[in-house]
C-alpha cells in the first residue's frame, strides 16, 4: 500500500507552469513514475498529457450541469467555471487507456505508467470521482505492471484555485466504491538525480514446437509466440543475476554510482516452456532468437534485487511490446504491406502478413524480424525506449516522443542509443538443425554468403540423413568465398 508519494520537483514545476498557462478548462494525462511495494512509497517522475484523439478532440472536457444555460466549456473562460459547484468531467476513457498502452511500450525498467493526473477545479474533481476511477482502472489494464502487480494506482489532482497538488491512491478492485480512493501524502523532492542505472543484454533462443493437435490448428505465428513468451516468463523470473560480475545474494542497497551491468543466469537445459510430454507429433518448430537490451532505473532506497526484478520485467515487456506492434501493424494494413513477406514466393500466402499465418497449414520456412529497440535520452540521464520496425527510421521515433511523451524531439541523433542491430532474415538451417539443442545460430559473416545460403535452403528440404553432407557443402562454399574475398582484397 503506497502511503507516501514524492514528485520530482524540477519536472513537476514545469508541468504546473505549462498547465497554468494553458487555456484548457481541464486536462488529463498519465503519471510516469514508480510504485514500490517494498518501501510503501510512490515516485513521480513526470506527467504526460494525453494528446487529442483521432477526431481532434481533447481527451477531457468539463460538462456543465443541464440547468446551466451556457454551452459546454469550450467557449467560456475556464476560470469562471471553478465557482460552479455542479460541473463534472467527461473523459474519453478508451483514448486515455490507449495512450497508456502506447506509452507503456516506451517505458524501461523501473519507470512505469503508474496512474493519471487531472487538472481541474476542486468541485469538478469531486463530482467526477467515478469517471476518474474508471479511467485509472482502464489505464492500469492497458499498462499493467508485471512484477508483483500492486492493485493500486495514483490519481493526482492539480487544483487550479487554490493551486494545490493532492495525490490519491486508487485501489483497483472490481467494483469502484467510495473507499477505492484514499488520500496519500504527497510532497515534492529530488528523485530523478539519485537514480541508479542498470543495463542488461539478454540473449535468448526459444524453440517452440508446433504440435499436430486439433487445439493448435488455428494458431497463428503471433499466438504461438505470445504463448511461448508467457510460458517463458516463469523461467526468467527465477533466473539468478550478477551485477558487475558479483552474484546477487543478499538484498543490499546499491552504493556505487555509474552504470551497472546485470548478467542473467538461467538454469542449464531446464526449459520449462517445453511441455513435459511423452511423445507428440509435431508439424514444425518456431525459433525465436536474438538479444534484448534493457535498462532499469532504481531509486536510491531500493535494493538491488528490485533492479534485477525491474530488468526482468522490462525484458518481458519489451518482447511483448514488439509482438503487439507486429499485431497492430497487421491489423492496420492486412494484406497491403508486402514488405512483411519477403520469403514467400508462393502466391497463395502473399495476402497475409507473416505474423498472422497459421502455422499448421504453412509448409514453407518463413521468418519475421521483430522491431528493434532504441533508447532516447529522457529526464536527468534516464532513457525511454521505442521499438522500430525494420522499415521505420528515427523520424518515427521523434514523432512518438513528441506525440506520446510530449517531449521535444531529440535533435542530436548521436544521443540515441541503438544497441540492437537489425536482425537478419536468413534461413540457413533446416528443421532438423533447428530442433537440435544449442545448435549454433548460423549468422553468416557477409552479405554474399547470405545470398548463397538462402538459395540453398529454398531449393530443397534437408533430410536428417544428408544434413552433414549439405552442411559440408555450405561450409566449403563459404570458405571458398571468404578465401576469394581475402585474395581480392590483398
Amino acid at each position, binding site marked *: 500500500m503506497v502511503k507516501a508519494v514524492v514528485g520530482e520537483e524540477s519536472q513537476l514545476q514545469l508541468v504546473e507552469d505549462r498547465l497554468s498557462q494553458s487555456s484548457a478548462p481541464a486536462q488529463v494525462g498519465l503519471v510516469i513514475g514508480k510504485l514500490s511495494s517494498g518501501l510503501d512509497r510512490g515516485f513521480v517522475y513526470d506527467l504526460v498529457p494525453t494528446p487529442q484523439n483521432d477526431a481532434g478532440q481533447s481527451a477531457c472536457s468539463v460538462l456543465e450541469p443541464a440547468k446551466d444555460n451556457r454551452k459546454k466549456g469550450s467557449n467560456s473562460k475556464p476560470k469562471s467555471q471553478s465557482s460552479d459547484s455542479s460541473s463534472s468531467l467527461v473523459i474519453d476513457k478508451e483514448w486515455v487507456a490507449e495512450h497508456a498502452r502506447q506509452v507503456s511500450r516506451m517505458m524501461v525498467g523501473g519507470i512505469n505508467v503508474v496512474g493519471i493526473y487531472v487538472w481541474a477545479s476542486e468541485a469538478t474533481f469531486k463530482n467526477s470521482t467515478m469517471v476518474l476511477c474508471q479511467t485509472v482502472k482502464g489505464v492500469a489494464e492497458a499498462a499493467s505492471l508485471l512484477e508483483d502487480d500492486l492493485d493500486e494506482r495514483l490519481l493526482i489532482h492539480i487544483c487550479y484555485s487554490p493551486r494545490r497538488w493532492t495525490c490519491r491512491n486508487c485501489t483497483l478492485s472490481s467494483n469502484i466504491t467510495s473507499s477505492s480512493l484514499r488520500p496519500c501524502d504527497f510532497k515534492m523532492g529530488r528523485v530523478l538525480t539519485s537514480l541508479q542505472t542498470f543495463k*542488461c*543484454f*539478454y*540473449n535468448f533462443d526459444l524453440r517452440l*514446437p508446433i504440435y499436430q493437435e486439433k487445439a493448435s490448428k488455428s494458431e497463428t505465428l503471433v499466438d504461438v509466440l505470445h504463448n511461448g513468451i508467457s510460458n517463458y516468463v516463469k523461467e526468467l523470473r527465477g533466473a*539468478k543475476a550478477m551485477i558487475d560480475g558479483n*552474484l546477487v545474494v543478499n538484498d543490499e542497497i546499491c552504493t556505487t554510482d555509474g552504470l551497472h*551491468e*546485470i*548478467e*542473467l*543466469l*538461467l*538454469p*542449464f*537445459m*531446464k*526449459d520449462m516452456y*517445453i*511441455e*513435459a*510430454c*511423452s511423445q*507428440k507429433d*509435431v*508439424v*514444425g518448430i*518456431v*525459433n525465436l*532468437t*536474438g*538479444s534484448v*537490451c534493457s535498462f532499469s532505473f532504481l531509486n536510491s532506497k531500493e535494493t538491488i534485487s528490485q533492479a534485477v526484478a525491474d530488468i526482468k520485467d522490462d525484458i518481458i515487456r519489451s*518482447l511483448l511490446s*514488439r509482438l503487439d506492434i507486429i499485431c497492430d501493424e497487421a491489423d492496420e494494413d492486412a494484406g497491403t504491406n508486402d514488405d512483411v513477406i519477403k520469403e514467400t514466393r508462393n502466391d497463395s500466402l502473399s495476402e497475409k502478413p507473416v505474423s498472422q*499465418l497459421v*502455422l499448421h497449414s*504453412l*509448409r514453407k520456412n*518463413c*521468418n519475421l*524480424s*521483430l*522491431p*528493434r529497440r532504441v533508447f532516447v535520452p529522457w529526464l536527468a540521464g534516464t532513457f525511454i525506449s521505442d521499438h522500430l520496425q525494420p522499415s521505420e527510421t528515427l523520424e518515427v521515433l521523434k514523432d512518438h516522443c513528441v506525440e506520446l511523451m510530449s517531449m521535444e524531439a531529440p535533435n542530436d541523433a548521436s544521443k540515441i542509443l541503438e544497441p*540492437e*542491430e537489425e*536482425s*537478419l*532474415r536468413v*534461413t540457413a538451417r533446416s*528443421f532438423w538443425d533447428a*530442433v*537440435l*539443442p544449442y*545448435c549454433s545460430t548460423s*549468422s553468416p559473416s557477409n552479405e554474399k554468403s547470405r545470398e548463397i545460403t538462402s538459395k540453398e535452403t529454398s531449393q530443397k*528440404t534437408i*533430410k*536428417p540423413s544428408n544434413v552433414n553432407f549439405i552442411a559440408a557443402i555450405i561450409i566449403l562454399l563459404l570458405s571458398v568465398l571468404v578465401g576469394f574475398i581475402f585474395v581480392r582484397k590483398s
Partner: protein
Amino acid sequence: MEKNNKSIRIECPKLLITRNESDLQWLIGSPFFPPLTIISTFRCIHSGSSDPDFLKESEEIRTLLLKGLDVIGALIVGKSDPQKTAVRAVEAARNLRRVLSGRTNLENEEIIGAVADPDTGDIRFFVSENESSASLDLVNSVSYDANPEKFLWESGCLLLCQLPIKLPVCFPVNKPSDVECIFSRAIEAVIAKLKDPNVVYLVEASNKASLDVVQPVIIRGADLDFDTTAPNIELLDEAAHSSEQKLLPCGHFCLKSKSTPHLFSAKNADILQVSVLLNRSEKSPKRSAPAVEYFPAMEETRLLIVDFKLEVLCYAVQGIPLMHAISKLIIPGLIDQLISMKQMTLPNLLTQHPELHPYHFSPPGIAHPVTVIYELSYGETEMKQVDARRSLHMRLGLPFDRPLLRIANSLDLSIKDRSSTSSTRKGSSFLKDVHIGIPSSGVSGGIVSLVQGSYEYYHYLQDGFDDSGWGCAYRSLQTIISWFRLQHYSAVDVPSHREIQQSLVDIGDKDPAFIGSREWIGAIELSFVLDKLLGVSCKVINVRSGSELPEKCRELAFHFETQGTPIMIGGGVLAYTLLGVDYNEATGECAYLILDPHYTGSDDVKKIVNGGWCGWKKSVDSKGKSFFLQDKFYNLLLPQRPNMV
C-alpha cells in the same frame, strides 16, 4: 627384484581376503593422496574366460566411483608364482584405467599389483613404475591405518552437482531408426555445451552454518581450463588466500572446526553444492534484435522429451582450486553420467521411459561414498532391482543380508542444519539408542556383543496411552519393529497396541474380542506379528528357569554378532528387551543389557539410565538377588534378519 623405499598405505577398514572372494579386485585410490595409498577395493564381477570384461567393468565402475577417486591397481588371489600374478594384476589395472579414462598414454603412472595367498591371507604388493619397463618392485613397507575416515575426510570434502535436463528429440515417424542417431547428436550437443564459455558454475556451501557466512562463488566457463591433467593440479596453500574467485580452494566452503573424530565420515563431510547455469547476457560482438523463424517439418515428425536427472558427487581435497574441481571433477562427472544414462535409455528409447535416478551410498566398511543409478519405474523389491543390488553388494564386498543399498539408505545430501545433534531428529519423538554411553557391565574379560544399528525406546504410558501393567510385551515389540524400520528393512509404521491386537485377530490367533482388551501377549504372539507385518521369522529359545539363562549366553552372543536384532524376553511375568550380552567364555561370567519397557517416566536419558531402566544386569547381582527368576520359565524371541539386499 630390487629393494626400494616405496611404501604402501592401506586406508581401508578391511582388506580381508577369504577363500570365497572373487579372484580379482580393483584397488581404489585417489590422485589427491600420496601415491600408493589404497582406500578401498572393488571386486571384479564381469570376467571372460581368463581376462576381466574391461568394457563392462569400466561402465559399472565409471558410474560407481566418484570423480576424484580412481583405480590405482589390482589384487589377484592366487597360489601361482606371485611375480607373474602381479604382472597380470598390473596389466589388468592398466587396461581398466585406459578404458575408464579414454586416454591411451598411461606411460608414467605407478600401478600396484597385489597378490594374495588364499590360504594364509597374506598379501604381497608390487609396483610397476611405468608401462615400458616390465620389472616390478616388491614393496615391503606396508602400513595399515586404523582410522581411514579421518584420513579421507580430515582434508576432504564432497562436491555435489544436481542437474536436471530436459532433452527434446525430434524424429521422423516413418524412419524411427534415425532417432538413435539424432538422440546421440543431441547428447553430444549438451556435452559440448557444458564446456561452453557462457556456462556458469555456481558454488555454494550446502550446510546452513556455512551458508550464512560464505557467499556463493561464480566460476565462469570461459575461465576453465580443460587441459591440465588431474595429477598436476596444484594444491593451494590455505595461507595463500586468493582474492580471485576462481582460484579459491574448495576448503573456502568447509567448516573450520572439526575436531571431534566421530564427525569424520562421508555423512558428515562438507558438501559443496555446484549448480550449472547459462549466462544469457554473454558478451557478443553482434547483438541482433529478436527474430523469428519457422521451420515446418517436411515429413511426419514426432517429438520425444527425455528427462535426465543428473546428480554427480565428487571427492576433492580442500586444497584444490574450485575451477579445477569443476573442470576436472564436476564436468567429467556430468558427462560420464549423461553417457551412462544415455546407454541405459537408448535400447528402448521409443517404447519405454526409464526413470533413472542416481543415489549415493556410504556403505559400512567403505570410507568413501559410491554412486548408483537406479531405475525407478520398477519397484525396489522387483527381481530386476534385487539382482542389480545383489551384484553391487558383490562388487563392494557387502553382506547379502543387509539392505544397505536400498534408496532409503542413501546419503541425504540436502541442505541441513549440522548444528543439531542426532538424538533429536525430526519426525520422531522417541529416544534412540539409549544404551549408548551407559556404565559398563563389570564383567571382567568379557566380550560385549550388542544390537547392530538403531532402535527407538518404547515404554509404558507413551503417547498418552495407559498400558501400565499389561503392555510391556507390546512395547518390546514396538522397539523391535522400530529397529527394522530404522535399518530400512521395512517402511511400515510402528503399530499401536490396537494394531498389534488387530493383526493377531487377522491371522486367527485371537478372537475379535481381543481387540481393545488389556490381555498380555508373549514371545509367540510377537513372532506372529513380526511375521505378519514384516515378514520376519524368529528363533525361539525356551528356558525352564531363569537360572538356565547363562547357559544360553554363547548363543545370544552369536545372535548379536550375526543377526544384531534386539531380542524380546518373555515368560512368567515380565517382558524385557535384550540389547546385548557381555560374556566371558572362560569364566562363564555374563551380563545382559536390558531395556526395560516398564519405565513410566518422561523420555529423559539421564533418568532412564540412572534408574536402571536401560543397563547391564547380571543374573545374580552383588546383593545376591537374581534378575531372572528361578521359578519362572522364559521364552527368548530372536528375530532373524531378513536375508535380502
